[in-house]
């Protein structure tokens, strides 16, 4: 597979981690109790750990002394390839958990397949990440059940979050040109094939949580092509603040 295309394929995976980790980072110190604060920070740390491996690989492909930080911090908004789901804001804890869960179930299925990539680096990253992602999925799934099948108030709040986030789930399974090429070269994962298992697993947890699967047939997409929601620019302003204000320095 052409190196520049592989680079773009890697960003499509890794940017999800970066942006979701950044969102979780906003919460650190502000959680509903210390235990969830610690657990969500753990997840953020896992995501950043994985993202560093991906970006180190991406930087190697770029060559010319590029670093993981160049890849992470110095792109324009239109060059970030994360799905819209992960950039959604921390409106309330229901959204945090909903976003996490809807991503984690996908992430697990994805990583499971990526282990079989014939790109050795990607396969190795996936093998290392699978245990972590499995824990994320269990954590967020358990919280979906607690909030869904908790109090009346929590059920309403959790349902509200699921309804609001659901339109962003379809994008996870749509393949852009780089993803198609990666699949053809047995580097990448067949995303539409993950959909059935995803629907089943998500449906099962939502049902157990006494929550309804939204019937809204309208979905949003664009993140994979770098067309983001209005939230993204602000997120990047924070993320890139130091690198943009003080260019070309070591930290």
């Amino acid at each position: 597979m052409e190196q520049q295309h592989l680079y773009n394929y890697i960003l499509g995976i890794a940017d999800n981690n970066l942006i979701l980790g950044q969102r979780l980072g906003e919460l650190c110190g502000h959680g509903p109790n210390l235990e969830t604060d610690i657990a969500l920070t753990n997840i953020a740390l896992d995501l950043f750990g994985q993202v560093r491996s991906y970006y180190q690989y991406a930087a190697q492909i770029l060559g010319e002394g590029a670093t993981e930080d160049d890849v992470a911090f110095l792109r324009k908004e239109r060059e970030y390839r994360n799905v819209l789901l992960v950039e959604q804001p921390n409106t309330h804890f229901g959204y945090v958990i909903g976003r996490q869960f809807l991503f984690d179930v996908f992430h697990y299925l994805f990583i499971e397949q990526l282990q079989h990539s014939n790109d050795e680096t990607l396969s190795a990253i996936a093998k290392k990440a699978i245990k972590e992602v499995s824990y994320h999925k269990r954590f967020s799934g358990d919280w979906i059940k607690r909030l869904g099948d908790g109090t009346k108030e929590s059920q309403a709040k959790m349902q509200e979050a699921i309804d609001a986030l659901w339109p962003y789930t379809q994008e996870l399974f749509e393949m852009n040109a780089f993803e198609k090429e990666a699949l053809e070269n047995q580097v990448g994962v067949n995303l539409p094939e993950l959909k059935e298992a995803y629907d089943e697993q998500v449906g099962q947890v939502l049902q157990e949580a006494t929550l309804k699967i939204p019937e809204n047939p309208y979905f949003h997409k664009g993140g994979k092509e770098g067309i983001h929601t209005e939230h993204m620019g602000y997120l990047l302003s924070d993320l890139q603040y130091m690198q943009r204000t003080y260019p070309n320095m070591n930290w």
Partner: protein
Amino acid sequence: MSEKEIKNLEEIFEARIARDEKIEPKDWMPEKYRQTHIRQISQHAHSEIVGMLPEGNWITRAPSLRRKAALLAKVQDEAGHGLYLYAACETLGISREELYEQLHSGKAKYSSIFNYPTVTWADIGAIGWLVDGAAIINQVPLCNTSFGPYARAMVRVCKEESFHQRQGYEIMLTLCKGTPEQKAMAQDALNRWWWPSLMMFGPTDAESTHTEQSMKWKLKRKTNDELRQQFIDQTVPQAEILGITVPDPDLKWNEETGHYDFGEIDWEEFWQVVKGHGPCNKERMKARVGAWEEGEWVRDAAMAHAKKQQEKKVAKAS
């Protein structure tokens, strides 16, 4: 119990402490010992979780992925310290909710240093280097304090704090070896954090109210002034290695005493911040109270869910 019996118990108790035996939660203890420990341990726990806020302020803006992950991990460690200090405090017969209530109402104090703002990235380095450095000097003696759960918690806390301190110093070192702009950022952070760090050791011995009793119970082994001097003696050479200047024109090595002489601390500022009028007191409390109130429905849901699960289990079994 008669007065004589209590007096007898107190004597046995004090003798145990004098022999360096640990007091455990189930042991008899004088009420004053219990209250003093609740006050000090909870104050310490509160300091950990309020301390998450100024540093948390830079997680989203950390300048590199490595620094971002390290900062997240550090702030998470502080949450962990808070957690086991609260747990140690709970063994004395007070609930976490009550402790939070005391923090939120302003009845309980936390370390005043966290009422200063973190305005540049260098502040993250300065906090690690100076604030954690001062905390370690305050806390290492507590690893041998008389109350078992506190002493054991402190062993773990100190290990992690010492790691944080090295990390903070390394941030400073990187800045000082960097561009002139970075070095200026480091100097500016030292200028702002130096005096508040010295204040972390509390009022001068002449003004300190708890020292004598605390010494007896091994909650304190050295006085505020002794610890402050130790911090200064240790930190000034570290600033010299960094090549930045401690903002105290009176700072001077004293051959005779073998210590640094230093200038007058602005105690008016100290008391202003302690009394709730520092630059960020209101913001810190607003953040803590806000997180607690916004989290109420989440905690309620978790309780309700656990109860439902328990009922299902019982129904299944019968």
